[in-house]
């Protein structure tokens, strides 16, 4: 069987994501966990680029890497909580974590068995015109998303109001 360049890159990125996801939950320092999470998000962005969803990849980079992780790091910096987090985990939580992991594994295996691994099914990077994406985001027809788009902005507004309420000093 021929291994294509795309599959090699996919393998490398997938390996990086797996290692970093494990690191993100096992490391004792919160800032290291945030950095490992950052690399997982980079990996997701790379997957989007491999698939040709360059818009989504760039959004992933700018919103998660440039936005959310920066916010995490900023808040960690300002709160100075750099003590070790490797504490003993209660037995109940241990079982809950194990059950969640097994459920996730079962779901993935089920999906893989049901649909097969899309070997070679991925089109070689074909980009979508941003104008099409833009129209889909603000269009009102079928398969167009103006309602979710606006609902998310209401959520953001609520977050901002909440932040102002918390930050006000009385």
């Amino acid at each position: 069987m021929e291994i294509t360049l795309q599959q090699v890159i996919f393998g490398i990125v997938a390996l990086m994501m797996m290692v970093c996801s494990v690191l993100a939950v096992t490391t004792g320092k919160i800032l290291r966990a945030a950095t490992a999470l950052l690399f997982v998000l980079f990996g997701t962005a790379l997957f989007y680029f491999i698939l040709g969803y360059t818009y989504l990849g760039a959004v992933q980079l700018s919103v998660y890497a440039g936005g959310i992780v920066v916010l995490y790091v900023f808040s960690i910096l300002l709160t100075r909580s750099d003590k070790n987090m490797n504490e003993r985990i209660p037995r109940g939580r241990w079982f809950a974590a194990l059950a969640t992991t097994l459920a996730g594994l079962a779901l993935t295996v089920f999906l893989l068995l049901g649909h097969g691994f899309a070997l070679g099914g991925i089109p070689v990077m074909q980009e979508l015109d941003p104008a099409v994406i833009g129209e889909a985001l603000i269009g009102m027809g079928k398969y167009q998303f103006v309602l979710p788009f606006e609902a998310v902005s209401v959520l953001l507004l609520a977050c901002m109001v909440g932040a102002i309420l918390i930050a006000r000093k009385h």
Partner: protein
Amino acid sequence: MEQSFLDYYSLEPLTRWIHDALCGVMSEDWAVFLESLVIGVAILLAYAVLAVVLIYMERRVCGAFQCRIGPNRVGGKGGLLQVPADVLKILTKEIIRLKNSDHVLYELAPYLVILASVLSFSCLPWNKGMAVIDLEVGVFFVLAASSIGILGILLAGWSSNSKYTAIGAVRSGAMLVSYELSLGICVLTVVILSGTMSISGIVESQADGWNIFKGHIVTLIAFVVYLISGNAEANRGPFDLAEAEQELTAGYHTEYSGMHFGFFYLAEYLNLFITSGIATTLFLGGWMPLHVAGLDGFNAVMDYIPGIVWFLGKTFFVVFLLMWIRWTYPRLRIDQVLNLEWKYLMPLSLLLMLVMAVLKTCGLVF
């Protein structure tokens, strides 16, 4: 309009020929891999060479503005070998490991900064058919890639475990996050005018006139706002308060030595170049030659100058403008910096975007 002049120096036939020749010898995947490897090395080489050129230029320009000569001993009369000598010196310096600091993050941070810088560097349009990363969402990708650098700065400041670096990092993080807004909105103004986000598309849409002339006064103001916020994004004076020497020794990279410090230094200069290169692409026509309506002979002569010369010439002109600003204005305080962005530049750029959208819908642009 006659546009054949665009193809005089196009590299596309050459790259296509190389690709086809390689595909004849090996499978296409290996060919792509080999090409990517060569291009990657070429990008890193260009990156390093440009850094040397920019540092030399900075020292000469700074000397001129301060009424002194600048480097003039090493390597003959112009001090041409001063910067290569500095490079050799920094390469041989010891890289210090700090006690009580987070080693992993401390050593990772410079690479994050350089990664962001190289990623956006490879999006620059050098010539026709000579763009390395040319996505449909090109400009947006540049903005996204350059935002990774903020994380590197924050991590560097935190993991050095020093008060100077922590304060420097928080200051510069706040500044970079703020100025990204007006920068992005100015870019959007041009995207509205050109009708595309692809970098090669934006350059090609300026074949009949640079954007700075096409958008009436709006793009001119947007250009100025872009330069101000781009200067802040590159962490350079009058916005270099991340490393305000009098208060913070050297800001977030105080504790770094050797080539780790060199990476921050390199990224700062290359970010200056990238800011100027994107400004050239968006407002000054990228690698497009200068045309004056009516002067056909003049235009024909201009067409024979290769695109890369145009691109580098315009970019270094913008670099010179930014250096001029740096060595002329005193440093701002952090509250003044944030006031300037949130109370003046951001509302102004929003207004510019609105006016541009109205002009474009009414068909009032050239």
